[in-house]
């Protein structure tokens, strides 16, 4: 460990950089949140405090439909991708080391591929097999790109699992599925929950792929916000964005607390 009082580890100019970094990261978000409570029409000049824009948002049927779409897509994608990811992680656990590495590489690769490539490829694929663009295609695409996000924490948790525990369960007359239900699954749970939350956030947040594969009726929140911005920044956008930000914050904190347990 580096002693915090050790003068060898002082680099004075780094402090300035750090302040700049945090400023660029958080000041825009703070401004956004503050302005979402601004009564003024022009989104950038402060007058008085009000909940008007939130009221507008919650009364706008298009926004509500987009939010509903986003939630449906995110929930389905989270559940399905987490189940797949869990099965994949558990299924691969007993395989040879090389096979595991190859598999991990293949599952993780989409995280490194530029999203636009996946987006175009998905669109071409759906067109090629003749699937009509709509909520279904969005859900399929989201399930697929959420799997690596769900897989990573589950797999990390699985690697920390003592294989002797499964042997002990088997020694104590548990059949493979009983051992899975009584020992593996409970011990994997923190990993599964944080995987699911990552998948949920990723799905809620996705713009590029959704923009490509969503049909006319399948607009999600990020896509809708993008549409609003094109006609000028309205304070409504500030309000929705603030709501999204608050929701993400809650999920991230939940996931953090769950993964802290044990």
């Amino acid at each position, binding site marked *: 460990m580096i002693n915090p009082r050790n003068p060898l580890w002082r680099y004075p100019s780094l402090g300035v950089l750090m302040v700049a970094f945090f400023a660029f990261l958080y000041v825009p978000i703070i401004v956004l949140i503050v302005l979402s409570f601004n009564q003024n029409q022009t989104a950038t000049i402060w007058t008085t405090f009000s909940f008007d824009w939130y009221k507008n948002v919650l009364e706008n049927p298009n926004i509500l439909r987009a939010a509903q779409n986003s939630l449906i897509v995110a929930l389905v994608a989270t559940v399905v991708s987490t189940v797949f990811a869990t099965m994949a992680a558990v299924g691969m656990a007993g395989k040879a080391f090389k096979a595991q590495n190859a598999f991990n590489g293949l599952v993780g690769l989409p995280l490194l591929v530029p999203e636009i490539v996946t987006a175009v490829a998905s669109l071409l694929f759906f067109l090629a097999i003749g699937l009509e663009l709509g909520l279904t295609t969005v859900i399929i695409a989201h399930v697929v790109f959420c799997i690596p996000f769900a897989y990573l924490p589950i797999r990390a948790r699985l690697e920390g699992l*003592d294989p*002797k*525990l499964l*042997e*002990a*369960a*088997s*020694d*104590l*007359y*548990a*059949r493979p599925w*009983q051992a899975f239900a*009584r*020992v593996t699954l*409970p*011990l994997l749970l923190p990993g599964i929950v944080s995987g699911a939350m990552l998948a949920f956030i990723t799905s809620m947040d996705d713009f590029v792929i959704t923009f490509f594969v969503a049909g006319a009726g399948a607009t999600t929140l990020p896509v809708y916000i993008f549409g609003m911005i094109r006609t000028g920044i309205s304070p409504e956008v500030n309000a929705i964005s603030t709501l999204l930000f608050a929701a993400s914050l809650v999920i991230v904190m939940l996931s953090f607390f769950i993964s802290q347990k*044990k």
Partner: protein
Amino acid sequence: MTALANAIVIDNIGMVFGAGLGAVRALDGVSLEIGSNEFFTLLGPSGCGKTTLLRLIAGFEQPSTGSISLYGQRLEGLMPFERPVNTVFQSYALFPHMSVAQNIAFGLEMQRKPRLEVQKIVADMLELVQLTGFEARKPAQLSGGQQQRVALARALANRPKVLLLDESLSALDAKLRKEMQLELKRLQLETGITFVFVTHDQEEALTMSDRIAVMKNGKLEQIGTPTEIYDFPRSRYVADFIGETNFLTGIAEANGLRLPDSQWLEVTHSRPPGSSVDVAVRPERAQIARDTNGLNAVVREVVYVGTDTVVYLEIAKEVFRVRMQNHGGAAKMVSVGDQIKLVIPPNAVRILEAES
């Protein structure tokens, strides 16, 4: 049903981990018969294959060659949960998310025992391992010795036909270990369970076992009762591993050996004259005297160890230990530097097999 006298028959088991240059031969041609209700101990240094043999019996690994039968039934292809065998793991392997009581109940629940019966057995087991009151604790909230006792209770709760114990008392303090040793012996007599016990503690092996198998590099070196192993070690390896031993090497002549310093050690043997012979003598079987016939030796050190005194002698350039009981007062006679006579009765000398 005398045909069932053998609980476990291990027939020419070989076990190789890995392949090619990295292959490790963990077991090599091991054949054993373990009697029903026997307390059988596998004894040997770290890495000699004790755990591997237990894992083969439990069914966690498949042998590379050979076969294992349990009460006449071949175990090939039977999964661990199909074998009437329970294991106390060297690393305990307690389920960390379950309480002590849930851990102990696990095997019973998997066998669908009625709830009331499970509760009763769990309570009995907790009492047996002296952990009553700890049922709600998680394994992480227990000391190493307590965890080991939970592991023991979890396996014993199932009343298996065969109980495999992998260094299962090693984490206990001396007093508790003695108590658990007695408990295990009592259980063995009461329940008819066959115990296969792994240890590298020779004293524990001698006190608890009906028979001991001493292992070396994946092979069996000697099998016998504690007395046989202690009094008649076959090789230098066994003699060295079990108890304290003195070794002497001499050239065979009729009715004795000529030691390197030309002194004469009387012993009956059947080795050809002129061959080099290793012998072992237990420290308590030799005596120190002054005015008798014996081997000339010099006292190098006198160590008082409570009930006994151990005298370190130098003879034929080797160290030779003599252990004397203190109540006779004999130990007071010697002090460092004394020239004394070392008396080794011919029947205390064990001829050891030539090392291969």
